[in-house]
C-alpha cells in the first residue's frame, strides 16, 4: 500500500552523510544516503551491524551527538530541514515525539525504572499535548488498550520491572503513539523478543499502521521481519543504500548482488537447502572506505570497474525482454522516472542490468 499518488513524501533523506570522529580515525558511518517516505507508507531499512541503518534513523530526530556529526546532506520533514538552518533546534523539538516518534530495540533501558509506566505516559501527554492530569491519565489508559494491553487501568500503576519484554515494548509503542505522530521509527523493535512475542508486536505495528494511517520506518537486520510488514525495502551496506525497491519485487528478484547474497544466506523455514550460500569475507572498514563499490571484494560478479568507481543509486527497471514488460508499462515507467517511490526500484550496481539479462536468459 503506497500513499495517494499526488502526495509529496512526508520525510525526505537527501544525500545524508554522517561521520564519527574517533581516536583511531574518522568512521564514515553513513555515506550519501537518500530515501523518502510517503504518507502512510511502511518502509523497511535493512542492513547488518555497522551498515549505518540505526545512525540514519537517529539523524531523523537530531539524535546524532558527538563524536558523531552530520557532515553533509539534509533530512526534511514536510519540507522543513531537521539538520540545517537557524530554527532547527526548535523544529526538532516540535517534531520529535509529536510528529515523528521512535521505538527502540531494548524496551528495558528505554523506560525509567523508578516511575510507573502510567506516570511516564502521562508525562509525555502533559508535555506535548498540554493535557490536564485527569485527561492525560484517561488517555494513557486508552493508549494501553490500543496497543493490546489487557486490564490497562491496573497496568498503568505498574513499574517497568513488573512487565515482560513484550509488554514493555507495547508500552513504548503506546508512548510513541501518545501524540498521534505521522511517522513511527522503529529501530529493531523485536530483536530482543522471543519469536511468538515478535509476531505479536509485528502484528500490532501492522494493525496500527492500517488504523491510524501511520507511516512506519522499520529498521532491522532480519529480512523476514520486513517481508510481512513493509511496502518498500531499502537495503544498506557499508553506509550506503545499495537497493531500494517495493518489497515484493526485492524478494522475488533482488537486483543487487548483496541483496541476493543476504537472501541466499538466510535459512528459510519453508525451503530446505543442502547448504546455505554464505557471503564470504566481511564488510570493509569504514575508516577507509574503498574507492569503488564497498561490496566489490565480496561480490561474485565484480569486474574491474567495480573496484575503481562508486556505483550510484540508479533506476532499475525490468528490461523490455520478451514476454516481460509490455510497451505500455515501459511508457508508464518513463513518466514516473523522477519518483523512485512509485517506479519502484533503484539499485547501486554497475552490473545489475547484465545480471538481470543473464537471469532472464537462463
Amino acid at each position, binding site marked *: 500500500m503506497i500513499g495517494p499518488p499526488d502526495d509529496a513524501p512526508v520525510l525526505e533523506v537527501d544525500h545524508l552523510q554522517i561521520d564519527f570522529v574517533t581516536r583511531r580515525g574518522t568512521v564514515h558511518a553513513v555515506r550519501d544516503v537518500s530515501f523518502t517516505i510517503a504518507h502512510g507508507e511502511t518502509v523497511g531499512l535493512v542492513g547488518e*551491524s555497522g551498515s549505518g541503518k540505526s545512525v540514519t534513523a537517529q539523524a531523523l530526530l537530531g539524535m546524532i551527538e558527538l563524536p558523531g556529526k552530520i557532515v553533509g546532506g539534509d533530512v526534511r520533514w514536510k519540507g522543513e530541514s531537521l539538520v540545517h538552518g537557524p530554527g532547527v533546534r526548535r523544529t526538532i523539538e516540535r517534531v520529535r515525539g509529536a510528529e515523528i516518534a521512535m521505538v527502540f530495540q531494548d524496551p528495558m533501558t528505554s523506560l525509567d525504572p523508578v516511575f510507573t509506566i502510567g506516570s511516564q505516559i502521562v508525562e509525555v501527554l502533559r508535555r506535548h499535548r498540554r493535557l490536564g492530569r485527569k485527561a492525560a491519565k484517561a488517555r494513557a489508559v486508552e493508549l494501553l488498550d490500543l496497543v493490546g494491553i489487557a486490564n490497562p487501568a491496573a497496568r498503568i500503576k505498574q513499574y517497568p520491572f513488573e512487565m515482560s519484554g513484550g509488554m514493555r515494548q507495547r508500552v513504548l509503542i503506546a508512548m510513541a503513539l501518545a501524540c498521534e505522530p505521522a511517522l513511527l521509527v522503529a529501530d529493531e523493535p523485536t530483536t530482543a523478543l522471543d519469536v511468538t512475542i515478535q509476531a505479536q508486536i509485528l502484528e500490532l505495528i501492522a494493525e496500527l499502521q492500517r488504523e491510524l494511517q501511520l507511516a512506519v520506518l522499520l529498521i532491522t537486520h532480519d529480512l523476514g521481519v520486513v517481508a510481512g510488514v513493509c511496502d518498500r525495502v531499502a537495503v544498506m551496506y557499508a553506509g550506503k543504500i545499495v537497493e531500494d525497491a517495493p518489497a515484493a519485487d526485492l524478494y522475488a528478484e533482488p537486483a543487487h548482488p548483496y541483496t541476493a547474497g543476504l537472501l541466499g544466506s538466510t535459512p528459510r*523455514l519453508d525451503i530446505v537447502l543442502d547448504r546455505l550460500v*554464505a557471503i564470504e569475507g566481511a564488510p570493509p572498514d569504514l575508516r577507509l572506505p574503498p574507492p569503488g563499490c564497498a561490496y566489490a571484494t565480496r561480490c561474485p560478479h565484480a569486474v574491474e570497474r567495480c573496484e575503481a568507481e562508486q556505483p550510484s543509486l540508479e533506476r532499475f527497471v525490468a528490461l523490455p525482454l520478451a514476454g516481460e514488460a509490455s510497451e505500455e508499462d515501459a511508457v508508464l515507467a518513463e513518466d514516473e522516472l523522477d519518483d523512485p517511490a512509485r517506479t519502484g526500484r533503484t539499485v547501486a550496481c554497475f552490473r545489475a542490468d547484465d545480471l538481470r539479462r543473464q537471469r532472464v536468459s537462463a
Partner: protein
Amino acid sequence: MTSATSATSTTSTDPARTGRPVPSDELLVEVDRLSINFPVGRSGFWGQHQQWVHAVDDVSFGIRRGETLGLVGESGSGKTTIGRAILRRIEPSSGWIRFRGQYITDTKGEELRRLRQYMQLVFQDPYASLNPRMTVLQLVAEPLVVHGRAKSIDAARGDVVKLLGRCGLPEDAADRHPHAFSGGQRQRIGIARALALRPAFIVADEPVSALDVSVRAQVVNLLQDLQHELGLTYLFIAHDLSVVRHISHRIAILYAGKLVELADSDSVYESPRHPYTEALLSSVPIPDPPLQRARRRIVLQGEIPNPIHPPPGCRFQTRCPLAQDRCRHEAPPLEEKAPGHWAACFFR
C-alpha cells in the same frame, strides 16, 4: 509411559542429504526424566518456604552418534539448562544422563575431568567467551595442555595452526589476540577451541545468534562441514527455527521446561502435532512477502508462565487454543503419535 530415549532408536532413518550426514543408530547421549530446579527467594512467615524455579521438568530424549539434535524454545524454556546439565556443569535435581552408554550423572573428580574431553561447549557470545589477554594460540592450546595432550602451549603450535586453518582462520591468526577479529572469526576461534580435544559431542548454545546474517551462514556451513569430516554429534540449541531446521536431523521443542514435541525435522515442520509447535512455526517470518502475507498466523496471546508457579496440568494450557478442562488438571504425557514423532498433547 516409556521415555523417549528408548524411542529414538525406532525413529525412521533420515533421508540422506548431503547437508546432513546420516547418523548411526547408536545413542551417544541419553537424557532420561531429567528435572532441574533452582532455589530462588524464600516466602512465607520468616521465609519458611523455599521457592523453586522449575527450569526443566521430566525431559527425556536421546541423540544418536553423528546426529544433530536441535533444541528449540523461547527464553526461559530450559534449553540452555539442559545443555549445561548434559555437560555436567549444572547438577540435575532428578533423572539420569548417559554418555556412550555410561551413566555420568554421578561422575566426579578425575573421571569427570576425563569425560569432559569428549564433550565440549560452543558459546553464544564470541565477544565474552574468549579471554582478551590470551593469544589465539594460547586460547586454543589451553585445553590440550590442561588435559595433558601437549607439554606446553608452544609444543601444541603445529596442531593449533592446522586446526585454525580448518576452521577458516588466516595463517597468522595464532599470534593475535581476540580483539583483532570480527564476530564471525571469533566464533571460529571458539569452535577451534572446542574442537582442540577432538570431542565426540558438542553442545552449541545459540552459536550463531549473535552473528550477522551473512556471517551466520559461514559459521553454519563450517559446523556442518566439521560434522561431516569428524563425525561430530551436536546438540544445537537455538531459538531461531529456520537455522535449526536447516542444520538438524531431529528437533526437540521445549515449552516452559517441558518437552512438548520431538521428531524428525521435516515432520516437525510439515506436520507439527503440538499446538505450541504450530504457533511457533507460524510466528517465524518467511522472507517472501506474498507468501508471508498469505500465511495463516497463529498469534499466541499472553506470555510464558512464571516458572516458580507453573500452571497445573499442561504448561501450555494458559495460551493454548485447544485447551479444555482436562488440560487444566492433568499433564499430557509425551507420546509417540506417529513412528518417531513424539508429542505431549491430549488432542493431537
